[in-house]
Each structure stands twice: as C-alpha cells, then as structure tokens.
C-alpha cells in the first residue's frame, strides 16, 4: 500500500494536457504566486509599518503638545522622559529600589507559579475539590484584590512579607483559572486511550494531562505576570512606600514628572519583555498543540 492521499501535486495538472493549455495554466499559477507574494508583503508592511506610523505620529503629537507648555508640570515631553529613563538606569538609587521591589515580585510570582500550576491542574480533574475551591477563585477575580491590602498590612505589618503576600494574591487566581479550564477540558478520549495502553496515574499526568494543558499554563503565566506587576505597583504606591513605589512617590511630590514617567517606563518595559517572551514561547509551541483534542 502506498498510502498517498489523492491530491494534485504542484504542476501535476500540466501533465497530459495540450501544450497551449499547459502553458496558460502555468502562467496562471505564476500570476497567483506573484499576487500571493505581493499580498503577503503588504500584510507584513502593515503589521510593522502601521503600528510604527501610529507610534511616530503619537510621539510627534506628544512632543509638540508638551514642549514649552505649562502642561509640563504634569506631563513631560517625550524626549525629556526618555532622557530621564536613560539617566535612571545609570543611577545606583534606581537599581537599589528596583531590587527591593523585584525581590518581592520574584518571590511572590515564583510561589504563585509553583503552587498555581499543580493546583490548577489538580482542580481541573477533581470536580468535588474544584467545587470547594471555585468559591474563592471566582470571587477572587470579581473582587478588587486591593481591598484586602489593608487587612494584609494589619496582619503582617508593613513588611517585606506583606508585599510578597499581596503580590501573591494578585497573581495566584489568574494563574490557576486558565490552567484549571485547560486541565478540565482534556478529552475523555485521550485519557481513555492512555488508560487502555496501561498508563499509570503518573503516566497519565506526565504524558497526557500536563502536555494537553500547556496552552492554559502559558495563558496563566502571562496573566499571572501582569497581575503580579499590578500588585507590586499598587502596594508600593499606596500602603508601603518602598522600592520603585518609593521612588515614584518621591518624584511626584517633587513635581518631577519626567522621572515619574521614566521610572514607570522602565518597569513597564520590563513587564512587556517578560510577556513578549512568554507569548513567543507559547506561539512556538502552539503549532504542536493545534487541534488539542478538546471535546
């Protein structure tokens, strides 16, 4: 048996055809290929050029609206805050503040990921336990987590661990939820297949459930990172003036918007880089996870 599907090979239709028909069809194929390439180039140009154009237009408008204007007190010119951001990177004070903030962020996010992934996977496969946890998880996403910050401060004091805890409760539900959904929707046919081939509980998790949940895991990671940064900013700007929050508060109080924007830009860029890396990793894997057996 050859097993080849019945389909036309490129150029196959030129076989066994009169020469003039074959020539005409070959020219048609060429024209179609050229049109496709032209369209593809336009798509790429639009995908890169359009955002670039909008960005340049926005920056130009921002610069012209703020240069020499009284609005500078609140909103710096684009060039001034880029310069401020660049200056910050050369200052030891910035890096010290960044480490103060990032150490809490890394610990909290790390804990949220280490706990959130297995918990999300487990909840997706155990309906009874999931029923018990769903009350907390569902209310966590509809309730502004910020309302719990004063309680945390009262409970743990204005400490490093209070910051870690706040960032953790910001990130944790958003890591768990997509993973829980992903895990719960792994098709019964896949798990039956695995069982039919003698997969143990460990083998089922290792070879089917966890790989099948990878898209949900990446979604959870991206959402968790985003909310972790939000939590870090909020706690440091409101209740505990330390780290980046302390820097920003200080610059605000001294009416230095360029430095406020500059510092914020650096942190936002950091978060964006992490998100882009995660998205990129997810995109590279997603071609394998296509048609992921959802039933």
């Amino acid at each position: 048996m050859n097993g080849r599907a019945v389909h036309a090979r490129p150029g196959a239709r030129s076989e066994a055809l009169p020469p003039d028909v074959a020539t005409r069809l070959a020219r048609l194929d060429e024209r179609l290929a050229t049109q496709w390439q032209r369209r593809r180039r336009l798509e790429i140009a639009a995908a890169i050029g359009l955002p670039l154009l909008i960005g340049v237009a926005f920056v130009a408008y921002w610069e012209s609206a703020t240069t020499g204007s009284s609005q500078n007190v609140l909103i710096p010119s684009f060039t001034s805050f880029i310069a401020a951001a660049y200056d910050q990177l050369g200052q030891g004070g910035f890096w010290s503040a960044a480490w103060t903030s990032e150490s809490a962020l890394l610990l909290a996010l790390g804990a949220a990921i280490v706990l959130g992934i297995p918990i999300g996977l487990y909840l997706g496969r155990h309906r009874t336990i999931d029923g018990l946890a769903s009350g907390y998880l569902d209310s966590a996403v509809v309730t502004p987590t910020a309302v719990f910050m004063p309680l945390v401060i009262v409970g743990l004091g204005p400490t490093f661990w209070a910051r870690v805890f706040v960032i953790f409760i910001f990130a944790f539900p958003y890591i768990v939820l997509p993973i829980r959904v992903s895990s719960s929707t792994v098709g019964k046919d896949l798990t039956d297949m695995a069982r039919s081939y003698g997969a143990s509980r460990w083998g089922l998790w290792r070879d089917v459930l966890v790989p099948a949940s990878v898209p949900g895991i990446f979604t959870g990671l991206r959402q968790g990172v985003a909310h972790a940064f939000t939590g870090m900013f909020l706690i440091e700007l409101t209740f505990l003036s330390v780290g980046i929050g302390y820097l920003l508060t200080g610059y605000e109080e001294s009416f230095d918007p360029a430095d406020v924007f500059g510092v914020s830009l650096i942190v936002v860029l950091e978060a964006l880089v992490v998100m882009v890396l995660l998205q990129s990793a997810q995109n590279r894997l997603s071609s394998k996870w296509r048609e992921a057996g959802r039933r």
Partner: protein
Amino acid sequence: MAHSDQDIMVAVNDVSKSFVKPGKRRNPEILPVLRNINIQIKRSEFVAIVGPTGCGKTSVLRAIGGLLPIDAGAITVDGKLVTGPGLDRAMVFQDATLLPWATALENAAFGLKQRGVPKKQREELARESLETVGLGHRAAALPHEMSGGMRQRVGIARALAVNPGVLLMDEPFGALDEITRRSLQDELARIWDEDRKTVIFVTHSVEEALYLADRILVMSHAGRVTDEISDFLPRPRTRGMESSDAFTRQREKIWEALS
C-alpha cells in the same frame, strides 16, 4: 460454537451492563446497554461485531478492553479475568486519538512508554510498526500535518507496537472517506495475514465486516447478540469476492438479521 478452553482467547460470559441516569422526580433511569452477552473468540480469529448505532457493540469492546466495568458476568482474556486495561490488549479508536503535540513516532511509541520500555528500544519498535503501516517516512510528522487516513494508520501502528494478544478495533475506519477506508481495509487484511492476531472489530458496515472477518456477530438494539455468521468466504480475501453470489447472500442475511 463450542471450542476447547485452550483455543479460546477471549470469553465473555453472561455479561450485562446498564447505565444509570437521573430521571424525573429524582428516580434514576436505568438504561440497559448489554444484556446477558455470551461470546467466545478463538486465538487468531478475526471477529467483527455489527449492529445499529446504540446497540452496545462499542460497550462490548470497551468492556473487553477493561475501560468499562460490567455489572454482571465475567470476561477473560487468555484465561485471565479482565479487571481493567491490560498489557495483553490494545485498542484502536475511531478517531485515532493521537496526542496532538507528539510526532507519529512518539504516538506509535506511547503504549511502549507506558510499559516502561527504554527509549531507544521503544523508538526502534515504534519505527518498525510505522513501517508496517507504510508510514516509516513520516515518523517526524505531527498529527495536524497528516491526513485522516494517516492518523488512523498511526493509531494502528501504536496498537501493533505493543504486540498485544488481542487487538480491539472500534470502528477504526468509520470517520474516513470511502477511498481511504478501502485502502486501510486492504492494509489491515495484509497485516493480519502476516501476523494472525486475535482481532475484535466493531463496525456498522456490513460489507466491511464481510470483507475482513472470519466470523460476524450481529447485535440488536436490545444489547444482545442475536445472530452469528461464519465460514462465509475463503481466505485470502480479494476485492473480486465482493461481487460474488456468496458475498451478496451473506450481506442480505446480515441485513435481515439487523432488521
């Protein structure tokens, strides 16, 4: 048909199974699926089970495969009681059920991995199985890069790789187009001719059952085996037999049994 105990590979004795679903006023509704099924399958026999949708033919297969617990009776495979899935049986599912993130080779080696076979050895065995089904050149392909027929052949390779005593096939070609289906039927017939495994093949196609099987069990909507047909065509089977009088007679006989 009585067989000696040593001949019997699969024995289904007085097996019954019902599903329970919530009914009105919290009274459960009992849905009988299998009613006192008795089947004996010899070693190296190719048995097809035909019947209308919902007659329980897949349930019989899943019960033999250990995926469906039964309510009454007993199932043995090679003399051992079936209490769950086992190394002696391998299943081929209707829609191939491949792991979407794994290559053809990794999918074919899946059963071997669950059995603890070392990586190098399981890749060799999986590669051999893929060669058997004509897909040795597509070992690195992912499922979405393959046609439906190719995916189903990987499913068959996965089952063959573990060298089971019994091959359980649940409408494996049901989701395929006619051309691919006929091609795979020929492929399966060729593989079976070389290997002579015990095969239980569920299908809703009477023609497919006649072309492939030594014996055909007919099931009814009541979850019972109502008829049995054997010795209907000589082996080896050829496509020319499909237009023979014997084939037509048996086909009409089965249709009568189904109606």
